[in-house]
């Protein structure tokens, strides 16, 4: 069976969920061979094997932390040359897309980004994408070279599928380009204890209607009752009420959770672009005419300062 390279996104050996989803999708088109780079790479093997990796190629070097992106491209290219895979899958993070793009160019292949589904096809893997603010769904394939495809979080359910997960050291020679951009400082983001926005199964977002930074506590409390991530509309972010890293929308993050709860958000096209593929959409807004109500599965026309606390209390009571 054809091998499929899967680029592993991990933090010190802890594999992030989108990579596990990729392994599920990779099994539809071949046998997953995972590539884990950097500090703790070897520690990813057990998790990757449990989710279907037949082989795990690992490599650590200080270059991965000291320089931007290119060392990882060199390593993925080395893995590509060693394996000659049928496809290369990379998580659709900002960095993942950059790594995938440079690899595609080097190996003379096309690239598809932000796939939301992947199937085997007669002429190679067929990727589903959601475009134009999710108003269209396209099916595309790479027509030249080995398909390089990046896949968005929440595109597949994570499935356990134990495989050999044999660990092999990858041999990497860094290119001259690898040391071009130095990382001179790194400040880890403070953990909120909440799930990462793009990976979360449930997202609770606040917008202009929240009215101020201090009121976001209400949104956070609701999110915590559901184990959800917190998002914000551009209006709320531009007003300085919530960090830009949590912005959902065209110029922020695009999310596709099982459940999206929009509170005090009118639903401008820029916001809809970032959340319209959510499976179930709920909105709470005072304005019955707000365009967000065109998208909802369930909407409450009402004051979020009344509805949200009551909802939070009900959720807590039900969860006991």
């Amino acid at each position, binding site marked *: 069976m054809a091998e499929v390279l899967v680029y592993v996104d991990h933090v010190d050996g802890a594999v992030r969920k989108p990579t596990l989803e990729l392994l599920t999708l990779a099994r539809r088109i071949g046998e997953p061979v995972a590539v884990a780079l950097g500090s703790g790479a070897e520690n990813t093997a057990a998790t990757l094997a449990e989710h279907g990796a037949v082989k795990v190629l690992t490599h650590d070097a200080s270059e991965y932390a000291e320089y931007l*992106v290119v060392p990882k491209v060199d390593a993925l290219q080395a893995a590509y040359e060693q394996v000659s895979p049928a496809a290369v899958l990379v998580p659709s993070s900002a960095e993942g897309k950059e790594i995938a793009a440079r690899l595609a*160019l080097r190996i003379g292949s096309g*690239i598809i*980004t932000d796939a939301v589904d992947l199937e085997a096809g007669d002429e190679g893997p067929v990727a589903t994408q959601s475009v134009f603010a999710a108003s269209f*769904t396209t099916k595309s394939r790479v027509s030249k070279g080995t398909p390089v495809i990046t896949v968005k979080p929440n595109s597949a359910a994570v499935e356990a599928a134990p495989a050999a997960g044999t660990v092999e050291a990858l041999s990497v020679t860094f290119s001259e380009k690898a040391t071009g951009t130095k990382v*001179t400082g790194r*400040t*880890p983001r403070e953990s909120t204890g909440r799930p990462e926005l793009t990976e979360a199964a449930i997202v609770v977002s606040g917008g202009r209607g929240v009215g101020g930074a201090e009121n976001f506590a209400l949104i956070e409390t609701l999110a915590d009752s559901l184990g959800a991530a917190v998002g914000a509309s551009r209006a709320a972010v531009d007003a300085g009420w919530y960090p830009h890293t949590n912005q959902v929308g065209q110029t922020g993050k695009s999310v596709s959770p099982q459940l999206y709860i929009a509170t005090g958000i009118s639903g401008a096209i820029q916001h809809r672009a970032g959340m319209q593929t959510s499976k179930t959409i709920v909105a709470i807004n005072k304005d019955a005419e707000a365009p967000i109500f065109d998208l909802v599965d369930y909407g409450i026309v009402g004051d979020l300062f009344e509805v949200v606390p009551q909802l939070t209390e009900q959720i807590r009571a039900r969860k006991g």
Partner: protein
Amino acid sequence: MSLRIVVTVKYVPDATGDRHFADDLTVDRDDVDGLLSELDEYAVEQALQIAEDADDAEVTVLTVGPEDAKDALRKALSMGADKAIHVEDDDLHGTDAIGTSLVLAKAIEKAGYDLVISGMASTDGTMGVVPALLAERLGVPQVTLLSEVSVEDGTVKGRRDGDAASEQLEASLPAVVSVTDQSGEARYPSFKGIMAAKKKPVESWDLSDLEIEAEEVGLEGAYTTVEAAAERPARTAGTIVKDEGEGGKQLAEFLASQKFI
């Protein structure tokens, strides 16, 4: 020595318009107004600020696109860019990201550059890969997704805010930079700027000027094929309830019925 800055910009269909596909599954540009991609305005802004801080600098805006794409160049010129290059050729219709990066890279090399600045992504394709592709093609450092950028003594520095960490980056020129919408509000063109823009030079190049063969670009040269595009079915109308004091409870009932709680 003069600092030569090239800003890559894209003319995109207005996101608030009714965007759809043409019969050949390329983006239909006839039925919806276009404009300078909002995220590229941030790139123009940072280029102008870097130029203002330099002793001697020149800002060139570059686009690849149909006749109407001149509107995007005109906007950037009216913001304050010095000159513009428009790469236009019938054979470019249907060019994908890999092909676009080829055309841009050749044009950037022909124009001459010390610094390339791009927006983080276009607002239509939203791939966000062109800056990385340009760096790979030009063989220069990529300093991308910056929320802060500065240039001094032949070095570009910036801050990249990722999910896990915020990183400080540094590279020697020449380099390719991309900036996010957090890099600083883009200026509005002044009346004076708009008038001045009309007199600024706009060069037009075609594929032969860049020594690119037609089959390297366009639909034929594309590395990806769109096999189908379907309008997403309208969502079935949801339940909308007016809060009469029990809204939170009703919503909790709904969430429970959907097994979210």
